[in-house]
């Protein structure tokens, strides 16, 4: 009888603890402290994903290696144009090939995320969906125009403008959905999907 009571007690404890842990993670609401803190954490994870700011890597291949280790195994990305939908393996392969052709990256060159906004949190606080406004920048040549000859993945365009530094040209802008999963205590990129938007200037 004592054993039956004990088993019941254990099951009840488990149920209560399980539901309590779920409830605590799902109590997060847009704008509250936990939400704001998670948004800041993921903004930093986004910078790491894109090798921007303090995560800048002068050698393109170093960024590719970091991404290969950082992206979740199920990671995939969707972009406009010929690249379409690519798995993690396809992304790493394409970016590795690009890094062999154009090895160096100027500070600030590449995708620059702004206006990072956390949109939704699911799966008991282990899955997050966000959006940002990403500006794609490339260095300018001696003529003061975008140097399309020394970068990959950019279709040459005559629509561009200089950024505030005057050293980089903004050649493309998109709204980027950035989706993250928390595994072993670390937030990692799970999906990226971008939709083009008109240039700001």
């Amino acid at each position, binding site marked *: 009888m004592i054993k039956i009571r*004990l088993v019941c007690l*254990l*099951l009840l*404890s*488990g*149920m209560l*603890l*399980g539901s309590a*842990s*779920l409830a605590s993670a799902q109590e997060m609401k847009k704008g509250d402290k936990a939400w704001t803190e998670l948004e800041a954490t993921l903004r930093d994870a986004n910078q790491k994903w894109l090798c921007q700011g303090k995560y800048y890597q002068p050698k393109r291949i170093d960024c590719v290696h970091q991404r290969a280790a950082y992206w979740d195994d*199920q*990671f*995939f990305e*969707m*972009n*406009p*144009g010929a690249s*379409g*939908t690519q798995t993690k393996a396809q992304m790493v392969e394409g970016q590795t090939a690009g890094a062999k052709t154009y090895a160096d990256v100027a500070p600030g060159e590449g995708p620059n995320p702004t206006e990072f*906004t956390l*949109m*939704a*949190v*699911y*799966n*008991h606080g*282990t*899955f997050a*969906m966000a*959006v940002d406004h990403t500006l794609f920048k490339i260095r300018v040549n001696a003529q003061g125009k975008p140097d399309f000859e020394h970068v990959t993945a950019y279709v040459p365009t005559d629509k561009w403008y200089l950024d505030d530094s005057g050293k980089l040209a903004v050649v493309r*802008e*998109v*709204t980027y*959905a950035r*989706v993250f*999963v928390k595994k072993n205590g670390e937030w990692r990129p*799970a*999906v990226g*999907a*971008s*939709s*083009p*938007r*008109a240039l700001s200037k």
Partner: protein
Amino acid sequence: MKYIWALLFVMLFSSAAPTFAQEGMKPGDKNWVALEKQLDDVNNQWLCAGKYYKPKMQDCVNFRASYWSDQFFEVGRTGMTQTKEQMVASQTAAATKNPNVVRGTGPNPQDFKLMSVYGDIALATDLTIFKTADANGQVSESGRANVLRMFVKENGKWRPAGAVLIPVEK
């Protein structure tokens, strides 16, 4: 002492079980194929497409308002992000202006593909063909987009959680 260990085990199991309930599913296995089929159907419901066609646009908007997760959002083909509330408001305005739906018009999803599963979250892609009808009711394509479709399982039911539309040039 052994009861303390048992209690600790139950505590650990209880907190981990919901998170990993659907982990372990692999692309191509039976569970994956079954979930892909189920979500393909959810996708058609979401878009009031195929057998879920609704002749009145407002009926589709009302259905979506109850079907979408509360945190639902969408990035449209022009890069504009809208919350569920904004989507319902803009679609209600459109339904007031054009209340009737010609069968086959609107978003028509095809090539639905489940890409990843994380517990109660599933991420998929499709190619959505947008169609409109002219004054004679003739239906033709007006555009297409590769779409990221995000789903969440809430209270045992899969629901749309978000979408990102990436326009495809003709």
